[in-house]
């Protein structure tokens, strides 16, 4: 199938297949990375529901926790966890591309910027774990 322009009727213009993202591993990973944002939104939405349940009182909160424990919700959350993890890792790996930091006139190496992001992630996770697990 070819599309032509008025001025150059003989140039061949191939169409891009809707399955272009299956042609290369890198494209497929890209589409997965973009899809992961749906799961990030899902987790954020769940957190909002949780806040609402807390506000509605102990009974509503108990019902919410029960709903969280049902097999379909657990399955969705297991999948969401994998996607959110993938999202975080790809995000931190991309961070040095968008930021050019200069210290004392010298460019800070990409690996240092990525490492700082990972360190921040670990610290934040440790803080959350501390708040959750203390009695």
């Amino acid at each position: 199938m070819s599309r032509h322009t008025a001025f150059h009727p003989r140039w061949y213009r191939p169409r891009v297949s809707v399955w272009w993202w299956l042609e290369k591993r890198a494209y497929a990973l890209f589409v997965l990375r973009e899809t992961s944002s749906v799961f990030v939104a899902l987790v954020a939405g769940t957190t909002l529901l949780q806040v609402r349940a807390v506000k509605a009182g102990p009974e509503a909160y108990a019902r919410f926790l029960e709903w969280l424990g049902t097999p379909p919700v657990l399955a969705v959350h297991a999948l969401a966890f994998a996607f959110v993890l993938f999202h975080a890792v790809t995000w931190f790996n991309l961070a040095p591309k968008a930021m050019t930091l200069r210290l004392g006139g010298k460019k800070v190496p990409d690996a240092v910027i990525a490492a700082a992001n990972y360190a921040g992630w670990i610290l934040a996770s440790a803080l959350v774990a501390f708040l959750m697990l203390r009695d």
Partner: protein
Amino acid sequence: MPEAVTLVVTRYRPEQESEPTTERFEVPFRKEWVVLDALNYVKDRLDGSLSFRWSCRMGVCGSCGMMVNGEPKLTCGAFLGDFLPGPIRVEPLRFFPVIRDLIVDIGDFLRKLRRVKPWLERAEEKPLGEGEYLQTPDQLDAYKPFSMCINCLLCYSACPIYGLEPSFLGPAAIALAQRYNLDNRDQGSRDRLEILSGKGGIWECTFVGQCTEVCPKHVDPARAIQQYKLTAAMHWLMPWAGGSR
């Protein structure tokens, strides 16, 4: 080492066919030969009508970009030995209209490149008598990687966004705009802002990142685009702030 290797070359002769076809050519295998040497062997010995662009044979001119086994490559740097046992598929660069055989029309890129003003813009030139505009090594480092672009357009063929959204300025044009934005002798960054952050500009990019992977000169256009997203966002938040670097 094999004696010969097969090339499967895309042919498109608009006067006799409405869609590209492929043709197989058997060429001798030499370990020092690149795909471009094999194509030249075909043209010299097997079929003089095969059309393709090339010039320098040493990765400088950026003319001989083609798809080799589905990947955008400079054919002068793609050794036959890396694609054994073959056959080796040679196709025209993706996402560009094909004029004939392996030759694509790059007019779209050239028009976009002009739009981003890839030259030093000065409000006022200082008199020649005052000498050159001097730069420190750090000032040079700020833009040097982006200045290595040879306009080979491999990055466009790696970018699915360019394929799907033809209005996208594309990786090389944006990297070259950044090359001048980051040059301390340039004063045109305000002029480029509207073009770069408008329709078809940086916000079309979803950071697939393949432009950087395929670049033979390590220009890293993906970095240029993501950096400029930050610049443009800061401008949007603080339009009164000076400079757009």
